[in-house]
């Protein structure tokens, strides 16, 4: 019962703040959008907790709200975006956006309505007390190669970012 209430609360707040990220009727400031993105991420972490993915909820808050959004905020404040505040979304743009939302949602909804209520072979509640320890074991044993590849990818991204944001490439 309480879980249902929490699910609807978190789902509604996630979607509401996501809409406010994209189309805020009060403020056109990109910083406001980024702040509502933080809210979206936080409520989404609540949904992850509901799904028993506690470690991922923590990672979501640490990585997204802590690192990615801060990066967005830094870039927004580095660039001079005064013109964005006075800009309004054009008629064509808003119609296009609404139509795309509608089409994508109808598509997904049609795909979901044919689904059986339970996934075949589902065992119900996962019997994992703590997710973090088995996750670490799997990450460093079964998924070691992808993990290392990801670390190389992050290194490449870091070098690439430094190169891209240098003034002269020579």
């Amino acid at each position, binding site marked *: 019962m309480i*879980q*249902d209430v929490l*699910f609807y609360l978190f789902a509604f707040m*996630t*979607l509401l703040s*996501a*809409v406010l*990220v*994209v*189309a805020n009727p009060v403020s056109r400031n*990109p910083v406001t*959008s980024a702040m509502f993105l933080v809210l*979206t*991420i936080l409520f989404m972490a609540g*949904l992850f907790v509901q*799904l*028993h*993915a506690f470690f*991922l909820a923590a990672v*979501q808050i640490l*990585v*997204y709200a802590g690192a*990615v959004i801060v*990066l*967005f905020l830094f*870039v927004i404040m*580095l*660039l001079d*975006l005064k013109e*964005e505040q006075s800009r309004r*979304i054009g008629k064509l*743009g*808003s119609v*296009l*956006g609404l139509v*795309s*939302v509608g089409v*994508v*949602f109808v598509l*997904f909804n049609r795909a*979901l309505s044919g*689904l059986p*209520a339970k*996934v*075949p072979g*589902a*065992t119900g509640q*996962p019997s*994992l007390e703590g997710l973090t320890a*088995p*996750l670490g074991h*799997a*990450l460093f044993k079964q998924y070691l190669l992808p993990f290392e590849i*990801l670390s190389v990818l*992050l290194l490449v*991204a870091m070098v*690439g*970012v430094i190169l*891209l*944001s240098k003034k002269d490439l020579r």
Partner: protein
Amino acid sequence: MTTLNQYLIVSALLFAVGLAGALTRRNAILVLVGIELMLNAANLNFIAFWRFGPNPELLRGVMFVVFSIGIAAAEAAVGLALIIAVYRHYKTTDLNRMDTLKG
């Protein structure tokens, strides 16, 4: 009791909102924000399928999301560096004004 379908509908709506943001906003940074929303919707789907699907103890869905969050972080960093480089050149982040490749 919440079901798989409820989570899938939430994630579909979130994806649709992110897509609308990526299509309607003309500021490159806010387009990236829309893409982040869509990535998050995909992550929610992975976890919902992990939780309600068969063999949750194998942690497949969780692994997908761990890697997807790592890649999203790299993607955001590279995307923002590109935006800074473009801003140096064009003095704007408005996507409509970056039309050098337009035929």
